[in-house]
């Protein structure tokens, strides 16, 4: 068996209590310990807890947060209801199925892909080790199939298990031995190991918030944003901040506004249903010019939808959901690890422009765990312009050229004022005069439209007269598709937008100069991104929409085909 794979994807499935997530996490840790990059995503049945589940682990010699086209290995502790995951676990004739004869044959939906079946007596082998479990045998088999070294596996088990380490290691080694008998998918060696983190998108966004200066968070739990909050709660306490669990999302966003009005950068995190409830207060942030950040970890909509699955369909509400003309910021991280920088940036923009900012993450980023290179942080400084008394009557909403007016922070004498969601004049006094309304509308629009995001507005890769436009978690598979095309000598342009609002027509125009064919890639049904692009930009050449709703992620192969299509 040659070590010629630069990426191997395996899935481990089984019913509740089988320990597939535990084993999946250890496999990821083992891959990391061996110097590889890795990504783990998960899926489970409808049960609140304990039903069938699958851990999907991809190990690679290159950094990626995308799932591959197919899984090389699907292993199952048992096959109970695993067929429900068939669409999420694409296999091919080169794939192999691992299962325990004691639990019957693999479901037809998997065997009909042409995947070869190799039974392994997981249960029986586990019985050979005192305190051994079938999932640890499976872990060993999977690690062995990829060619992960035994030491890495041991290290991972040591790190993860509180008790039963010996038994775990013994069982995993039995699994490793089984793998030696099988045709595997050995990973290429990875040369130098860079400095890495093991992190989920939710943790990354939480950390980005803290880097941006957030010290107050108010929130209401909601899948798939809850882990972001659960990571932030103790972390905030450590850095001198706090998290308040609010009674609902109306409270959480208004608490955040109150704290921010008090001078403390503030954030909340939620998903679609919660964002819906925050719309009114976001408008208050716009009019009263109080910075605030909302991280929307998008899930499948509309309404309650599918709480545990991903989709990119909150673009409309994020961009256009507010009543009235309410200019604000919308930022989308374009990789799992970019959740750090994108959230930090959003906080900086909110603070420096005194405006609400929405970060569009999604369930895919939020709940996936990946080995990533430690991000290089730029030293940008975004600060809230604070006012001090100069003896003049204070104009909170002064009509400055930039549209930004220095803000008085409670406690500062001589410049007290009332922040107001009613239309107002420069002093902040409510006004129903059309002149004041127009002047303040223009001020609020100006501070957003004058913003120059530099190169941060998008990541642009490649050359050529085909361009693919996308955002968020579709970027990962697109990057991989581009790499494949490029490897075959076909270059094209990948433009992944990070700044969705304000739109950057001049920059996109430049990025698309000379382009003849535009592909617009997004994970939703109605083409929200396409519609947004059409309304804000002039797209050159022939435009094709590549879209489908969640939860199935785009695979590199399908994007690749569209890029190179003659």
């Amino acid at each position: 068996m040659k070590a010629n794979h630069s990426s191997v994807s395996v899935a481990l499935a089984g019913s509740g209590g089988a320990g597939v997530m535990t084993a999946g996490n250890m496999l990821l840790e083992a891959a990391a310990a061996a110097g590889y990059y890795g990504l783990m995503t998960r899926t489970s049945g409808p049960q609140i807890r304990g039903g069938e589940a699958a851990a999907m682990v991809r190990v690679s010699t290159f950094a990626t947060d995308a799932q591959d086209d197919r899984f090389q290995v699907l292993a199952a502790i048992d096959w109970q209801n695993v067929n429900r995951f068939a669409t999420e676990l694409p296999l091919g004739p080169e794939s192999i199925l691992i299962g325990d004869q004691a639990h019957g044959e693999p479901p037809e939906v998997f065997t009909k892909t042409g995947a070869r079946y190799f039974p392994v007596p997981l249960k029986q082998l586990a019985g050979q080790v005192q305190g051994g479990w079938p999932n640890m045998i499976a872990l060993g088999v999977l690690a062995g199939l990829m060619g992960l070294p035994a030491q890495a596996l041991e290290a991972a088990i040591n790190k993860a298990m509180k008790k039963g380490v010996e038994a775990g290691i013994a069982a995993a080694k039995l699994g490793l031995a089984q793998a030696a008998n099988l045709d595997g998918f050995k990973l290429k060696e990875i040369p130098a190991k860079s400095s890495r983190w093991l992190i989920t998108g939710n943790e990354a966004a939480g950390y980005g918030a803290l880097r941006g200066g957030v010290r107050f968070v108010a929130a209401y739990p909601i899948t798939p944003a809850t882990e972001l909050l659960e990571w932030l709660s103790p972390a905030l306490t450590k850095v001198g901040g706090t998290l308040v669990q609010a009674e609902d999302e109306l409270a959480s966003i208004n608490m955040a506004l109150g704290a921010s009005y008090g001078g403390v950068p503030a954030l909340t995190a939620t998903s679609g249903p919660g964002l819906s409830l925050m719309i009114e207060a976001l408008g208050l942030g716009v009019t009263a010019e109080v910075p605030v950040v909302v991280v929307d970890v998008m899930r499948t909509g509309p309404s309650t939808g599918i709480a545990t699955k991903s989709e990119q369909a909150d673009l409309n509400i994020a961009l256009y959901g507010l009543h009235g003309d309410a200019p604000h910021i919308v930022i989308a991280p374009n990789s799992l690890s970019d959740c750090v920088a994108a959230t930090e940036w959003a906080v900086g923009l909110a603070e420096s422009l005194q405006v609400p900012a929405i970060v569009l993450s999604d369930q895919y980023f939020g709940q996936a765990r990946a080995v990533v290179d430690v991000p290089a942080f730029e030293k940008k400084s975004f600060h809230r312009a604070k006012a001090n008394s100069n003896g003049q009557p204070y104009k909170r909403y002064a009509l400055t050229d930039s549209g930004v007016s220095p803000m008085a922070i409670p406690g500062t004498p001589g410049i007290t004022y009332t922040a107001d969601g009613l239309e107002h004049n420069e002093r902040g006094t409510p006004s129903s005069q059309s002149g004041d309304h127009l002047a303040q509308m223009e001020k609020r629009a100006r501070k957003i439209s004058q913003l120059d995001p530099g190169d941060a507005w998008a990541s642009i890769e490649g050359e050529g007269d085909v361009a693919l436009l996308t955002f968020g978690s579709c970027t990962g598979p697109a990057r991989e598709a581009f790499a494949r095309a490029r490897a075959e000598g076909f270059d094209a342009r990948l433009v992944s937008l990070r700044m969705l609002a304000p739109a950057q027509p001049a920059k996109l125009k430049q990025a698309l100069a000379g382009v003849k064919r535009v592909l617009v890639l997004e994970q939703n049904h109605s083409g929200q991104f396409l519609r947004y692009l059409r309304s804000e930009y002039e797209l050159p050449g022939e435009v094709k929409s590549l879209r489908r709703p969640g939860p199935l992620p785009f695979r590199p192969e399908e994007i690749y085909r569209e890029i190179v299509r003659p």
Partner: protein
Amino acid sequence: MNAPITSPALTAKDFKSDYKPVWCPGCGDYSVLTAVTKALAMLELRPENVAVVSGIGCSSRIPAYTTCYGFHGVHGRSLPAGTGLKVARPDLTVLVASGDGDGYSIGGNHFLHACRRNVDLTYIVMDNHVYGMTKGQPSPTTEPDWSSKLAPGGTGVREFHPLVIALASGANFIARAFSGDPNGVAALIVEAVRHPGFSFVEVLSPCVTFRPEQRGWKESARPAPVAYTDDPARAARRLMTDDGFNIGVLYKGRRAPFAGLPAAPTHSLADLEGGFRL
């Protein structure tokens, strides 16, 4: 930027801004404004260290009529905004002002949870048993038989009992005031601010425009016949049978207030990265 220690004592006038209120002549809220400014002077606070947070309604217009920092938010959300502010800035004195519509109708859930949470702020509700701002619809405290365009012949719905709800939800200080006696209101606000935790002052404040009969409240309001209690069960019995016109402090609890932002960090950001590092 703190005020110099030697700054001269301020008077109520120093807390009144020069904006002309939009209120109708004779509105009870004028006296509440006076009472607030008097109370702040009596508390020897400075305007820059006080924030007045409100929602939407005639009553909720009060922040800008003071010289304090003000936050005139959206309808019904004054308590969350005030909560966020006070937790983030424990050094400030935070007054949250509301009306019976803002506070008890759309804002009712925040009322329940603010009472439980017990953040150290003072909640002043100007209750006129009507939606003044939107021109005369029944509010939660409106009598079931009060006829209006929206509910001809009355809503038939039992009134909301704010003080009982406050007690049931865990408010730490409960008082009723009547705007006809601004000095009395001021004294109660002073006591409320001084009491730690969530203090609730319900102020009967007539709407002379849509409820002109409330001018008669002058006759009904009277000092509560007994001193306040710190026993919730006893307070419950009293409040359940109270006719709505007993004025004074009615309950004081001893719960510890909700904690604000810690004074100093214990870790650096780099420390947190340790959790991700491989």
